[in-house]
């Protein structure tokens, strides 16, 4: 019958593929990352994101000095499944190191563990995989939230109403920044948190959420948006409504710094993302060459990028070449 023929074709195809392929797994000898040909992959959560792009530039600049390095960027498309697929792919292709911004700490744990088991060091950026691995390079998050809380409390004179524009549920960086903010505000009982809503990391969504807040609450003294993009949206919404208030973001992207210069934004916590990317790149080279094995670690070592509080007074201190 025809149907069985079709099934037959498929089976034959699979078997043929299997036979054509030659099995091969060789022992991994330590390479010299500055001389031997090495392949390094960068897998951000979303290639279109400003922070992710800035890291990418930082990594690329660092590797540009070494012609033996093949550097490839992959797009996680904001999906844990896609990231897992690509991780499997990178392991199959025997990359020498993976620089990863995990979409979700738990969801990428299995893949990161598998990579480390195969001798491929995993360097995480900001968003950590929930398994011991070679290294995490991170902006401070809890501390950043805490710093903003102190600044806002100071700004409103320990007395006023605050709204939060949150990160999407499940994003660990957002969770940590917000936790730092909330915990620190507990020491300032005069500052009241009116509401918190998800702005999906996006300017437009931040704008929508802010307009909603503005119609609901006649008195808002300060806004904290978990990233700059949402803070920019909030600033536009407040300006359109003709209301003045303190608005803080976090990250310190180029546009946010401009907004601060123009007085549209009160402040942000700046991290040099070029530098952060470069740091991850250096860690990658270190890990490839070093006699370490991330799968044997019981805890992931962390490198923290120092936070810089930026306001209108201090924004000039961020040099043009460090703006991303």
């Amino acid at each position, binding site marked *: 019958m025809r149907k069985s023929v079709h099934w037959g074709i498929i089976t034959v195809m699979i078997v043929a593929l*299997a036979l054509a392929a030659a099995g091969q797994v060789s022992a991994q000898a330590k390479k010299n990352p500055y001389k031997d040909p090495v392949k390094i992959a960068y897998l951000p959560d979303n290639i279109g994101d400003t922070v992710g792009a800035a890291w990418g530039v930082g990594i690329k600049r660092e590797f540009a000095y070494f012609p033996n390095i093949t550097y490839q960027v992959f797009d996680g498309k904001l999906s844990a*499944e896609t990231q*897992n697929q690509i991780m*499997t792919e990178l392991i199959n292709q025997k990359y020498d190191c993976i620089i990863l911004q995990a979409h979700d700490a738990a969801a990428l744990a*299995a893949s990161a563990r598998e990579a480390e088991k195969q001798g491929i060091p995993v360097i995480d950026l900001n968003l950590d995989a929930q398994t011991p691995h070679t290294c995490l390079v991170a902006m401070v998050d809890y501390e950043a939230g805490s710093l903003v809380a102190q600044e806002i409390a100071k700004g409103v004179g320990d007395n006023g109403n605050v709204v939060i524009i949150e990160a999407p*549920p*499940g994003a660990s960086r957002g969770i940590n920044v917000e936790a730092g903010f909330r915990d620190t505000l507990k020491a300032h009982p005069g500052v009241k948190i009116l509401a918190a809503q998800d702005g999906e990391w996006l300017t437009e969504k931040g704008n929508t959420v802010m307009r909603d807040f503005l119609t609901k609450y006649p008195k808002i003294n300060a806004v904290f948006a978990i990233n700059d993009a949402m803070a920019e949206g909030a600033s536009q919404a407040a300006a359109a409504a003709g209301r003045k208030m303190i608005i803080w973001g976090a990250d310190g992207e180029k546009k946010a710094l401009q907004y601060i210069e123009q007085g549209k934004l009160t402040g942000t916590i700046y991290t040099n993302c070029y530098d952060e990317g470069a740091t991850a790149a250096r860690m990658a080279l270190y890990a490839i060459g070093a006699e370490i094995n991330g799968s044997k670690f019981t805890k992931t070592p962390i490198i923290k990028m120092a936070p810089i509080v930026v306001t209108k007074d201090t924004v000039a201190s961020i040099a043009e070449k460090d703006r991303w």
Partner: protein
Amino acid sequence: MRQETIRRLFSLLLLSILIVAFGATSKLFLTLPNIFTLLREASVTGILAVGVTFVIITAGIDLSTGAIVAFVAMVCANIFYYTTLPVWVALAAGLLIGAGAGYLNGLLVTRLHLPDFIATLSTQGIFRGLALIIAIRSSTGSISNKVITNQGFLLLGDRVSVVYLVTIAFFVVALLGQGILKMTPLGTHTYAIGSSRKSADLSGINSDRVKKVAFTISGICSAVGALFLTARMQTAIPELGTGLEFDVIAAVVIGGCAFSGGRGDVFGSVVGALFMAILTNGIYKYNLPAAFHIIIKGCVIIIMVIFDSVYHRRMDDRIRKAGKMLDQAAAAAEAAGGGAGGIS
């Protein structure tokens, strides 16, 4: 040749072209680990596609599959985090919830007469929302997904020598699906109501029941996919399976199911799922921009749909021409007989 046969050969041809093209240009492609990797990547989409095949053959659509995956995964994650119940409880709960979710879709479509598109678009939101609600949270109320450590459950994400369990499950589900479709009255009725609902009703088929069964099968398949996906990721996240429904529908359409219903089968959807996985896998090999992937996918779907409409036009033409030939002969006879074709 039948349309189905031509379509079948056509999609197999496309598949072979992809394999040959990638195989010839990338020495990484035709390696054992890679082949089993891409079979693994095809499997979850494929398992879901088996269920959606049923729905699309009834001339319906199921947009809720990705959300059912998230909901089922979340339920399992909850069971493992909060209880020490045995693995089979989690598996059974997952499958039951999948079946229930699918049945709910069926009810909305048959009882409330909602169009499939609207019904499943709504339930997509509902199931995704339920997944968010039951997501495991930290003391401050923010979502904190937990790694599942139940070793029995994690076996589902593992492999037997080189073949991943999920791939085996995929082929079992596909065989079962094809069997139901081709070897049971239910299968015949599925084709019947998709091809011509009114005619099916006139033949005494309970169309509503068939429709409900099709959605339930789709729900169960989503649950099976969810279990394997969860085991592989070793966690459940509320956004799991976002957009997966479109990959699934694409696989089904590439495999030969017509949106107008009544055509296609599970085998085609298997080919469709393999096609998509190979495409993704090959594109990773060259690390082409992600855009390529979607563009090629889109083009292939368009080609398939054009193929269908061209085929139909030619078919109509042929039947019309056949009628004409007979009529010409008749007219000639009538002319010869001096209009004696009628009375006397």
